């Protein structure tokens, strides 16, 4: 039985899925995450999936920023390497 792969998600696709959760539960993703996914109104499986979507989105955004920075002159690379994730990079 070979291991299969689903299509690699896109920022747009992941965002749409997160918006579907926001609509279903009438809270924003930020509000949901501020509670560390512990909102009792959110179904157990949905909470896991919602958090995973946020992790996916963060990874996709980081990859996009890496691609952007890799196209810049060399001096900019040092700052990229010192950052753990996109939020740190944007703050730098």
């Amino acid at each position: 039985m070979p291991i299969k792969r689903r299509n690699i998600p896109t920022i747009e696709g992941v965002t749409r899925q997160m918006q579907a959760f926001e609509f279903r539960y009438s809270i924003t993703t930020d509000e949901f995450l501020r509670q560390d996914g512990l909102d009792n109104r959110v179904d157990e499986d949905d909470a896991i999936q919602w958090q995973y979507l946020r992790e996916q989105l963060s990874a996709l955004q980081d990859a996009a920023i890496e691609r952007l920075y890799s196209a810049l002159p060399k001096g900019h690379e040092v700052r990229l390497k010192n950052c753990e994730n996109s939020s740190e990079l944007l703050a730098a």
Partner: protein
Amino acid sequence: MHFPEYAKWLAEQVANTTFEKGCVQIGPFATPTVTPDKPPWQMEWTIFFKDGLFLHVVENWYRRGSTLGGGGYRKHFSFHYGPANPARDTDGIPLRSELYPAIIRIDQDDQIGPHLHYEGEDHIPQDRVKNLRISDMEPFQFIRAVNEYRRSGDKFDKILRFTVTK
């Protein structure tokens, strides 16, 4: 754990796993989000048995910071065995429903932490489960237990050697 290492382990485990005749499978899927070798990734495998029961294992692996060596760590998992709801999601996976309760489900999530759904009781926390460290549970350990359950008819607490205290 890095994805190539995980994918190799998964392929080996899958190759050594067999099911009774007549099963229908969705997956196994192992899909990294961004590039072939980087977390996060999700593993998911669903097996439908001919008698209307199904097995569903899913793991979500998150990114570990580069200062911790990069790679991924398993943050969530859910291993489920029970009757299959005819209502399905877009991937064909049975939707969870109180009308189709799990015979056993072993979960780790942020809401409750490691816990069991077993013998009609939901959210049995780790401190009531003896001789089974839930967070160390692997999908193939669970799959072997399901196969043993179906073959022998023994209860899961006997097969996995755990006890649930009151």
